[in-house]
């Protein structure tokens, strides 16, 4: 479905995740983070977003455990930066799909 955010029209799924990563930019990230009640994106937030996007491009499945071991951020800080479900929030802001927890 279409969504207009920070003056641009982008494609998202029913949960609000971008379906076309090429439509992502930093303004969109800022607007989504507002919707997710994260007031500000600091340097550490951006570093994590970059890391997540990089993993996504390499088709490496994401998990909180892996991010904790990545050297980018530890799990405690990850929760502090993206409270209440850090992985699902951070991936939404990063414009990549919600990680499919294996079932």
């Amino acid at each position, binding site marked *: 479905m279409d969504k207009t955010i920070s003056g641009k029209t982008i494609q998202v799924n029913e949960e609000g995740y971008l379906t076309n990563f090429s439509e992502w930019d930093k303004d969109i990230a800022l607007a989504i983070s507002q919707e997710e009640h994260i007031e500000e994106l600091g340097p550490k937030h951006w570093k994590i977003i970059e890391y997540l996007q990089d993993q996504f491009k390499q088709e490496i*499945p994401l*998990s*909180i*455990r*892996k991010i904790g*071991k990545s050297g980018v951020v530890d*799990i*405690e800080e*990850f*929760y502090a930066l993206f*409270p*209440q*479900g*850090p992985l*699902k929030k951070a991936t939404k802001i990063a414009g990549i799909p919600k990680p*499919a*927890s*294996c*079932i």
Partner: protein
Amino acid sequence: MKKILILGAGTAGTMMANHLNHEVDKKEWEINIIDHRQEHYYQPGYLFLPFDIYEPEDIVKPIKDFIPKGVNLINEKALKILPLEKMVQMVNGDQLHYDILIIATGCNIAPEEIPGMKGSEWHQSVFDFYTFEGSLALRNAMRDFKGGKLVVHITEMPIKCPVAPLEFAFLADSYFKHKKMRDKVEITYVTPLSGAFTKPKATEALSHLLDEKNILQINDFGIKKIDNEQKKMIDYEGREVAFDLLVTVPTNKGDALMENSGMGDDLNFIPTNKATLQSLHYPEVFVLGDASNIPASKAGSVAHFEAEILTENILHYIKNEPLKESFDGHANCFIETGNGKALLIDFNYTHEPVEGSFPFPGIGPLRLLKESRMNHMGKLAFRWIYWHMLLKGTHIPFVSTAMQEEGKHF
């Protein structure tokens, strides 16, 4: 003589031994299967043992009874795989060469991953039900439970049989009702996921059942540690969940053999092609069942469907033909919902579980994603099917390897 080596004689390895025994030319190929254990456990039975529905003897049989005569069972422990040398190093010093290696070493719980989980309360008030010992200890604790807070918990994904903790919560509701003490037990379901299940339609149906059975839900709970003295779990955001009896599914990891061999990911699962089941790094290595990192359920039904496809692919590999990319992630699981009823779900990589009929489109007799007695009978009958058909690699009538889309309400 060329050699096929199967590591692990659990559900997946045993099925594979039986398939290959029928299919490969024994004049050219020798098949060996390695497992250091003596006993084969019917793992779905671990769910029923704590509720006194099954007895221990219902779920244990000797491994050797299920390995066909044409296959050698090597009752020794493997220490390390040397994939470049195509060799398996054994603990007793033997080195076994292979031309084809099939890894079916499964996964195990790793409670030591969470600080305090394997602490002073382990198997006192903190239990797993993913091992025979854990399940049996939990049965005794359930028998003695006088009431209070029962918490059913998942540590992190992926886990073997992802619906089992939900089933545990449903069966606990029914168990305490029968004991006429449900009003004394508060049941809470705590999960790192954002809902009862990972797929939307099943989550909706299962959440509804949790509500109906008065089971509380706590979602997005990323456990950090267990405080044994105060009997509570604490998550990364400081949330606390107190318990009198904690039934947890600890982190699941692949076999330590993968760590020794440098062949696993950070949870010891082996990077595997999700359509062909070939290792991503070594062409003569194939991975079956819970040991792989493919994004399918870690469940016996998945291993069963995989084994049919892997058998074909091993034959292609032997003949130097291209492998078939045909595994679709098909899983088929009964979900016990208590009071003699069950749900059935059928899904794959691309299609989430939905309502419909199974196995005959429009007819059934089983109903998908709806509670029924017939589904429960199916689950109980499955134990017989497991011992007598599934392990022997007999095709289950009417159940296709690839998921069928007909009869489902997408």
